[in-house]
C-alpha cells in the first residue's frame, strides 16, 4: 500500500532474479522487484542502502546488473528480454547512476547528524535506548519528527561543511586493465569523474557541450582516455580531437597564471637578480639551446610531462580552495600582484614588508613578551577533571556570616515600627496559624514531599526514564489529533498499540518491582492516569469513526 504514494520512474519487464521472472521498478527512493503475476515486491532496496552497482561486461551472454549494499549483501538482476536486454539494462544503469550519488550523500549526512544528536544529548540517547533498542517503536518513527525540527532550526550547521579536497593521484587511480583482446579498460567512478571535472573545468565544459547530444557518455570517456590530453607525453597528432581545445585552454590558463606573477616577492625568481649581465658577457649559459626547432621529440615530450605535473598540481590545489574565494577578494589579489601598475605600488609594500619581517625574525633570540606562565604539572589528572567533592552537599556559613546577619537583624529590629492600620484581623490570623500548624490544611502535602527520601535513587531514576519515554510516546499520540488523513489514522492506531506495549513491557514490570520493595504504589499513578486519558480519547475517536463509517456505508447502500 505504501507504493501507491511513490512515483515510479522506470519499469523494466522481463527481469529475472533468482531464476524467477519478474518486473523491476525504479522508484523515487528505492528500487524494487516483484515476481511476475504477484503484486508484492520480494526485493526492495532503498537507494540510500546501496553502495554501488556493477554491470556485466559488454561481451557476455548474460546481461546483468548487480547491486551491492552497504551491509555487503548483493542482489543480481538478469535482463532477459532478448530484443532489448542491453538497452533495458543501460537505461536502469543510467538512472541508478544519477540517483545513487544523491542518496549516498543524504544517507551519510543523515547518519552523521543522528549520531551527533545522540552523542550530544544524553536524555535523547536514553530515550532512544528505551524506545528503539527495546523495540517499542522503530528507529524511523523515532526520528520521524525529530530530524525535521533539527534541520529547520539549524540550517547553518549543514551548510558550512568543509569542502573535501581532491586526491593528487586521482588520475593514477584509474588503472587501465587489459581485457585480454588487445584493449584497455578503464574503471571510472562517480568520485573520479567529479575530481576530473573539478580539476579540469575545461573537460566539464566539453562534457556538457557534447553529452548526450553528440556523444554518449561512454564514448566521451573513451575519447578522453585516448586523447593526447590525457596522455600528455604523446605528441598531439589528430586535430579533430575534441580535447585539443582543452589543452589549449589549459595552456592559456597556465600562461595567465605565469603572467600574473607571484604575490610573495621572496619567491619571485624574475626579480631576484639585481643586475643581469648584458648579453654577450658571462661564462657560459646553463641551457645552451632554447629554440624549439632543434629539440628532439623526446626532449619536448619530457618537458611536456614536467609542464603537465606543474599544471596538474596547481589545478588540484586550486580546486581545493576555489570554493571559498569571493570575487572581490580575487580582484584585490590580482591588482596587487601586478608589480608594475601604478596603484599597485601602494598595495605591494605591506605584503613585502610582512614577508621580510617574517624572514629576519629570530624568535628564539627575543624574550617572550607575554607574561610568564607556569606549566600545569598534574600528578593525578582524574582528580583535576572531577575536582574536590564536598562530603556533604550542604551550604556552609562561616561564623563571621552568622555574626553579621545577627547584627543585621538586630539592627532591623531596632528600627522596627509596626504599621498598625494594615494588620490582619485576629480571626483570620488564628485560622492562618491553624492552617500552617502541623496537621493543618496547608501542611498535608508535607508527607508527600518526602518522596525523595522514601524512594531509593535508582527507582527514582527509573521513574524518570519512564516519564520521559511515556511523555515521548504520548506526544506522538496526541500529535495525531485531529485525525484527518489516512496517514494519521494509521499512525494513531500504531501509537495506541505502542502505548499498550509500553504499558505491558515497561510500566507493569516497574509496578511489580516497587510492589516487591513495599513502596507506595501510587508512584506510577500519574503515569497510568495519563495513559488512561489517551486510551479514552482513542476510544472516543474510534467509536465516532465507526459511526461515521457506518453512516457512510448506509449512504452508499
Amino acid at each position, binding site marked *: 500500500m505504501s507504493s501507491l504514494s511513490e512515483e515510479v520512474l522506470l519499469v523494466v519487464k522481463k527481469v529475472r532474479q533468482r531464476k524467477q521472472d519478474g518486473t523491476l521498478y525504479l522508484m523515487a527512493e528505492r528500487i524494487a522487484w516483484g515476481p511476475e503475476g504477484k503484486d508484492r515486491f520480494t526485493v526492495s532496496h532503498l537507494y540510500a542502502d546501496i553502495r554501488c552497482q556493477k554491470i556485466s561486461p559488454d561481451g557476455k551472454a548474460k546481461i546483468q546488473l548487480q547491486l551491492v549494499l552497504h551491509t555487503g549483501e548483493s542482489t543480481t538482476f538478469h535482463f532477459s528480454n532478448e530484443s532489448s536486454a542491453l538497452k533495458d539494462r543501460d537505461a536502469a544503469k543510467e538512472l541508478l547512476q544519477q540517483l545513487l550519488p544523491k542518496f549516498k550523500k543524504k544517507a551519510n549526512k543523515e547518519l552523521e547528524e543522528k549520531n551527533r544528536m545522540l552523542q550530544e544529548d544524553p536524555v535523547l540517547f536514553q530515550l532512544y535506548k528505551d524506545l528503539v533498542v527495546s523495540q517499542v517503536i522503530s528507529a524511523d518513527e523515532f526520528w520521524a519528527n525529530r530530524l525535521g525540527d533539527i534541520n529547520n532550526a539549524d540550517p547553518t550547521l549543514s551548510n558550512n561543511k568543509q569542502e573535501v579536497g581532491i586526491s*593528487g*593521484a586521482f*588520475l*593514477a587511480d584509474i588503472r587501465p586493465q587489459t581485457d585480454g583482446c588487445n584493449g584497455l579498460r578503464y574503471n571510472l567512478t562517480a568520485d573520479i569523474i567529479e575530481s576530473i571535472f573539478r580539476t579540469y573545468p575545461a573537460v566539464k565544459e566539453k562534457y556538457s557541450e557534447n553529452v548526450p547530444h553528440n556523444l554518449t557518455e561512454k564514448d566521451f570517456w573513451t575519447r578522453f582516455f585516448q586523447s593526447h590530453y590525457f596522455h600528455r*607525453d604523446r605528441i598531439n597528432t589528430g586535430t579533430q580531437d575534441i580535447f585539443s581545445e582543452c589543452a589549449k585552454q589549459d595552456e592559456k590558463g597556465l600562461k595567465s597564471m*605565469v603572467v600574473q*606573477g*607571484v*604575490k*610573495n616577492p*621572496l*619567491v*619571485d*625568481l*624574475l626579480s*631576484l*637578480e*639585481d*643586475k*643581469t649581465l*648584458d*648579453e*654577450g*658577457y*658571462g*661564462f*657560459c649559459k*646553463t*641551457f*645552451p*639551446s632554447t629554440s624549439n626547432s*632543434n629539440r628532439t621529440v623526446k626532449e619536448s*615530450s*619530457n*618537458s611536456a*610531462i*614536467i*609542464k603537465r*605535473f*606543474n599544471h596538474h*598540481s*596547481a589545478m588540484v*590545489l586550486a580546486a*581545493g*580552495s576555489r570554493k571559498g574565494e569571493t570575487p572581490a577578494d580575487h580582484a584585490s589579489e590580482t591588482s596587487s600582484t601586478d608589480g*608594475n601598475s601604478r596603484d599597485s*605600488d601602494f598595495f605591494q*609594500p605591506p605584503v*613585502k*614588508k610582512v614577508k*621580510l619581517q617574517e*624572514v*629576519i625574525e*629570530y*624568535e*628564539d*633570540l*627575543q*624574550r*617572550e613578551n607575554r607574561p610568564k606562565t607556569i606549566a600545569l604539572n598534574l600528578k593525578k589528572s582524574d582528580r583535576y577533571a572531577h575536582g574536590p567533592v564536598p562530603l556533604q552537599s550542604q551550604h556552609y556559613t562561616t561564623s563571621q556570616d552568622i555574626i553579621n546577619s545577627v547584627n543585621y537583624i538586630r539592627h532591623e529590629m531596632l528600627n522596627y515600627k509596626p504599621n498598625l492600620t494594615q494588620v490582619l484581623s485576629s480571626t483570620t490570623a488564628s485560622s492562618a496559624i491553624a492552617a500552617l500548624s502541623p496537621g493543618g490544611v496547608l501542611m498535608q502535602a508535607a508527607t508527600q514531599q518526602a518522596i525523595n527520601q522514601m524512594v531509593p535513587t535508582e527507582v527514582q531514576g527509573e521513574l524518570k526514564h519512564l516519564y520521559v519515554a511515556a511523555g515521548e510516546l504520548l506526544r506522538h499520540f496526541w500529535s495525531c489529533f485531529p485525525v484527518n488523513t489516512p496517514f494519521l489514522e494509521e499512525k494513531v492506531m500504531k501509537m495506541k498499540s505502542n502505548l499498550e506495549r509500553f504499558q505491558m513491557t515497561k510500566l507493569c514490570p516497574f509496578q511489580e518491582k516497587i510492589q516487591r520493595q513495599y513502596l507506595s504504589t501510587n508512584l506510577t499513578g500519574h503515569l497510568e492516569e495519563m495513559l488512561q486519558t489517551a486510551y479514552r480519547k482513542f476510544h472516543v475517536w474510534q467509536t465516532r469513526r465507526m459511526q461515521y463509517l457506518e453512516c457512510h456505508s448506509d449512504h452508499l447502500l
Partner: protein
Amino acid sequence: MKLNIEGLLVYFPYDYIYPEQYSYMLELKRTLDAKGHGVLEMPSGTGKTISLLSLIIAYQKAFPLEVTKLIYCSRTVPEIEKVVEELRKLMEFYSKQTGESNNFLALALSSRKNLCIHPEVSALRFGKEVDGKCHSLTASYIRAQRHSDPDMPVCRFYEEFDAVGRQVPLPAGVYNLDDLKEFGRRKGWCPYYLARYSILHANIVVYSYHYLLDPKIADLVSKELAKKSVVVFDEAHNIDNVCIDSMSVNITRRTLDRCHTNVDTLQNTIEKIKETDAAKLKMEYRRLVEGLKEANVARETDVYLANPVLPDEILKEAVPGNIRTAEHFVGFLKRFLEYLKSRLRVQHVVQESAPQFLKDIFDKVCIDRKPLRFCAERLQSLLRTLEIADIADFSAVTLISNFATLVSTYSQGFTIIIEPFEDRTPTIANPVLHFSCMDPSIAIKPVFQRFQSVIITSGTLSPLDIYPRILDFRPVTMASFTMTLARTCLCPLIVGRGNDQVALSSKFETREDFAVIRNYGNLLLEMSAIVPDGIVAFFTSYVYMENIVASWYEQGILENIQRNKLIFIETPDAAETSMALEKYQEACENGRGAILLSVARGKVSEGIDFVHHFGRAVIMFGVPYVYTQSRILKARLEYLRDQFQIRENDFLTFDAMRHAAQCVGRAIRGKTDYGLMIFADKRYARADKRGKLPRWIQEHINDGSLNLTVDEAVQLSKHFLRQMAQPFRQEDQLGLSLLTLEQLESEEMLQKIAKIAHQT
C-alpha cells in the same frame, strides 16, 4: 643587550645571543683592528647578518676616522632588502638605548628597474629596457637639446633631482628600496639617481656584487667610494664565478651582425655631424691628444677605484694617432670586425691564448696591440661626442671594444676558444668565440687593493683555504664557526645503496641505469610517505632531471608519489618556476604537502630558502659536478693547476660540494628549524668529498650513516622526525645554544666560545 667585545661597546638588538655570534664578532673585530681581509664561515640561520652589522656599526661609531663606510654586498634583491630591514632594527635599538636620534645614513641601491618611479619607464618589464628608456630621457646631451626643442620628452623626476636634489644631503635614516621610492615620490626626485648620489656620503651602503665587481658598472657607480671602507661580501661562496662572469665575453655571428649595423650608424652620424658641427669632432680630437690624464691623476691620488678594463699604463699615454680621428676609428673597427668574422668561419674548434690572437691579428689585418688597448675608451669618447641617445642599442659594439681592450691588456688569465657548433648539435653551424676569464682575481683585485678591510663570508665556504688562493689575497683571519645546538636539528644521511643493494650514484657510467633511477624513485617515494609538509629534491643538472622524471613517469613512480604529496618541478623558464614555487609553498601551508624537484646550480638552489615546513627534507640526487666536457672549464682547470697548484679533481670536487652544501643548507634556516639532509650518492661517503662539506654539516655525519640503504635511511628519518616534532622551547636552548648576558660573561662560557671558531 650591550656587549663588550674586547673593549668595544656593541649594541645587539636582541635579549639573547648565540655563542657563535659572539665568537664571530670577536674574529671580525680582530680583522678590522688589523685593517686586513677576512674569510669567515658561519652556518645560515645563526644570525650572521645582524652580528656583522652590530659589530661594524659599533666600530664605526667608536672609531669614526678609522672606518668611514660599510659597503655590504649581497647577491639578490630580497637579500639586500633583508639586510636593510635588519639594519633598521639595529638602528631603532640604538636610538632606544642611547635616547638620541640616529645620525647614520644607510641605504640600499639597486638597478633602475627596482627604483624607477617614472610612470612609463617603470612599467617596462625588463631591466635592460628600463635602463635604455631612462637613458634616452636623462642623458646630458638629450637634456641639452631640450633647451632648443622644449617638446622633447622629459623625466620630471630626474630634472627635479638635478635642479635641487644635490643641495641638501639625504636626511639620516635607513632607506630600503621602497623607502627611497616613497621619498622620491614625495619630493618628486628620481630615487635611482638620488641613491647613486647619496652612496658617496652614506655611512652604510647595501647593494649587489655587481656594483663593485663588474668593471662596467663599478666604474659608473662605485668609483669614488672612500678608501677607509669595510667591504662585506655576504653569501660569497660563488664569488669567483661572479668575478669571472663579469670579465668574460662571448661573440656570436649575431653579435657581429648587430655590431656591423652599429658601426654603420656611427659612420653616418659622423658624416652628418661633420657637415653641421665639425668643431665638435675637432674638440674631441684635441682632448684625445691631451690623453687620459685626469683619470690618471685621480687614480694616483687614490680617489678612484681602479677599473681592470682600463689598465694603469694606458692612462699615462695618449690615444694612439691611428684611431684618434673619428673616421679612422670607425675604419679601424670595421677592420677588426671583418677579422672577427673570418675567425668565426672555422670548421673545427680553435683554442688559443691572448698573445697568439694578437699575433694572428697583426699578421692578417695589421692591427697593432696598442690601438686595440684603447678601443673601449675611444669608443666611449666617440659615443659621448656623437650624442647617441640610446646606449643600449650600441651594446654590441661596446662588447666588441671591451673585448679588444681586454684581449690586448691581459696576456695571462684569459683564453680564447672558437667553437663552430654546439656539442649537442654538431650539424647546426653556430660559431661562438668565447673569450673567457679564468682568473677571478683580476676582477676583484682592485677591491682588495683599494679598501682596507674586505670580509668574505657565507654559510658554506669550505674548504676555507681555497678562496684566498683562487682570489689571490692574504687574509688576516680565516675561521669557520659551528652551530651550537641544544638538539641536533639537522640529520645528514648518506644513502649509498638501494634496497636491492644496487650502488646509487649519478656518475656518468650509471646515469642511464634503470636500477639506479628506480631506486632513486623509491627513495623519494618512501620519503614522501614519512616526511611532513615540504620536500625539496635537487638533481645534478636540468637534462638529468628531465630524463629521470620521464622514466619515473613511465614506471608509475610519480603516480604513487602523488598519493602522498603534490609534485612541482623547476623549469628553465623563471616565471613558470616562480609560480610553481608559490604553489609549492601554498601546498605546504595548507597541509597537503608537496615535493619540489629542482636543479643544483639553478636559481632555486641559489636564492630561495625553505624555512621550517617549506623544507623538512632535502634530497640531493647525485653529486652536482659541473659539466666537465666544456672546453672553457677544461681551460680553467688547466689554468688553476698551472697558476695556483690546485689539482683539477680538487677543484671539481670543491665546486661540486659547495653546491651540494648550498642545496642541503637551504632547509635549515635557524636553530628552531629542523630538516633531513639526504645525500643520495655513494660517493659522498668518501673522505675527499665529505671533508669538503662545511664543518657544521660534517660533524653531524656519524660513521653509521655513511652507506645506508633506502630502508635504513627511512628508519633513521622516522626516528629523527618523531624526536624533532616534540615541542622545543626557549628554555631548552638557554645556556647551551642561547645565552643571556650573564651567561655570556661567565668564565666557563668564554672558554667554550673560544673553541667554536675553528681557525685554519
